[in-house]
């Protein structure tokens, strides 16, 4: 009985395998091209496997992109940490200490995560110029922190909403203050939510292009802007571009492979339902 059910379902693997190929093709072409030697590079043979294994392309791509990869690292770590910390505090207050108007404030903050940034770009550039942060990584970090607040607040608020109110009431009766409850009760159990939010902010800031391209100067370009520029130039060959693409994708891919479960949860909270 069970065997026949299994057999009947085996054909379902065909469409799944077809889709697997579809999703893997770009990854395949990045790595396949990346590991060929310069001598083997030819658009005519782009689908053939390398005859000999070489890391020339990756070395060349890294030489061209290294400063920008490091800019991305320097940008993403503070951006993710600060916006997560703010989101955690906001989420705590909005979920557990409803003050008058909290129900209005929340959707007002949420709207900020959907806006097309083209609608704030001109004021943002003027503002950064006036406070002397235009062109710098600092300005870009500040931008990511502020526009990250809506989603980090949403995720933490939904997470804290699942924590029973009795727990907090009991602590209050024992004389804990509002910050005491946060430090001793909520913070220790917030680690899963922090992982979700940190991953989400890390990925969003690492992959951002629009803010970076208008706010930073050449020396401070993060990896996305540098890679796009490399791809637009006639001088750097496509094989190096492929290797560069892989280098640019590697950090977020690694995070996805190692912490995929949390990544998925972050995605789902982006769909509003926690």
């Amino acid at each position, binding site marked *: 009985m069970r065997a026949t059910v299994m057999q009947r379902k085996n054909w*379902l*693997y065909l*469409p*799944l395998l077809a*889709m*697997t190929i579809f*999703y893997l093709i*770009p*990854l395949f*072409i990045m790595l396949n091209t990346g590991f060929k030697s310069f001598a083997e590079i030819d*658009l005519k043979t782009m*689908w053939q496997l390398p005859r000999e294994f070489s890391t020339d392309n990756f070395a060349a791509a890294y030489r061209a992109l290294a400063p920008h990869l490091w800019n991305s690292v320097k940008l993403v770590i503070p951006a993710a940490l600060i916006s997560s910390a703010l989101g955690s*505090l*906001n989420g705590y*207050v909005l979920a557990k*200490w409803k*003050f008058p108007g909290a*129900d209005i*404030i929340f*959707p007002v*903050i*949420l*709207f*900020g995560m*959907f*806006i*097309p940034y*083209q*609608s*704030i*770009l*001109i*004021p*943002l550039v*003027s503002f950064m110029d006036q406070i002397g942060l235009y062109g710098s990584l600092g300005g870009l970090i500040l931008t990511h922190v*502020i526009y990250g*607040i809506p989603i980090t607040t949403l995720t933490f608020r939904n997470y804290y909403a699942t924590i029973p109110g009795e727990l907090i009431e009991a602590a209050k009766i024992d004389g804990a203050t*509002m*910050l005491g409850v946060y430090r001793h009760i909520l913070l220790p159990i917030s680690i899963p939510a922090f992982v979700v939010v940190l991953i989400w902010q890390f990925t969003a800031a*690492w*992959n951002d*292009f629009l803010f970076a391209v*208008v706010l930073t100067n050449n020396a401070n370009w993060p990896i*996305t802007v540098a*890679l*796009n520029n490399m*791809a637009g130039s006639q001088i750097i060959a496509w094989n190096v*571009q492929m290797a560069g*693409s892989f280098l*640019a*994708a590697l950090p*977020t*891919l690694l995070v*996805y*492979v190692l912490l995929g479960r949390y990544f*998925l949860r972050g*995605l789902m909270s*982006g*769909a*509003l339902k926690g």
Partner: protein
Amino acid sequence: MRLKSEKWLNILLVSPSIIAVLIFVYGFILWSVRVSLSQWKGLMPDYTWAGLQNYRDLFNDPRFHIDIRNTIIFTTLFVGGCLVIGIFLAILLDQGLRGETFFRNLFLFPMAISFIVTGVVWRWLMNPALGGRISGFNLLFDSLGLDFLINRWYTVPNWGMAAIALPAIWQMSGYTMALYLGGLRAIPESLREAARMDGANEWQIYTNIIFPLLRPITLSALIILGHISLKVFDLIVAVAGKQLPLDVPAIYMWQTTFDGNFYGRGAAIGILLLLSVAILVVPYIRYTTRTETEQ
């Protein structure tokens, strides 16, 4: 007494964030509106009142017409493609097959990558060169004997935008699948059992029970994918640079503002983009936060 001071502490804790969002989102939107109503072109700010002139100019601007047409083509194909592939994969993965987690994680990995990386790779996959310089997918089709599929991708006159939807679907269809899979998992097995007892076949179960129950998911997916598609920018820049046949409002805004210094016009495009996104998103936010308070 203590309660009162704690209330102030609450507000004190959240107010930096709230004030920042109020300024950087709402304040800046108002500032953009003001720029869009000005004559500002050139490097020096010029807030001389222009009324709705920038908006009128846009509606008479052939380039903006191309942008709207391109956005409609892209949105239809991208959203449609993601929904169809998403629900198809979700149903497949809901059949209790072995290796489900593996497939699910694999279909989702493009979400971790930037549109720029996706665009750079697909630019070579969708290489439009024909004849002796053929490569990418066209070369693959050629060697598989599928010559009829060979095409000029994003350089096809008038319809190049359709090709850009392909990498976008590649990137976001796995996410749509995850949304639907979550929805399918929330439907109790007892409902299907009851229908089977009543003699319904699998097809009827899907059309009469499961698809109607998935409607809220479809709505969420439509809104999330729809607002991404109105904002599409990096992907096109990475695939094709700034070419007029593949122009969209976000690229026009960027170019006219920061390359051309037409700040008034750029702000007007930004505000029109905001309005189109708000029409989708505001009812959605109201709906989700309201059902939440009712629960």
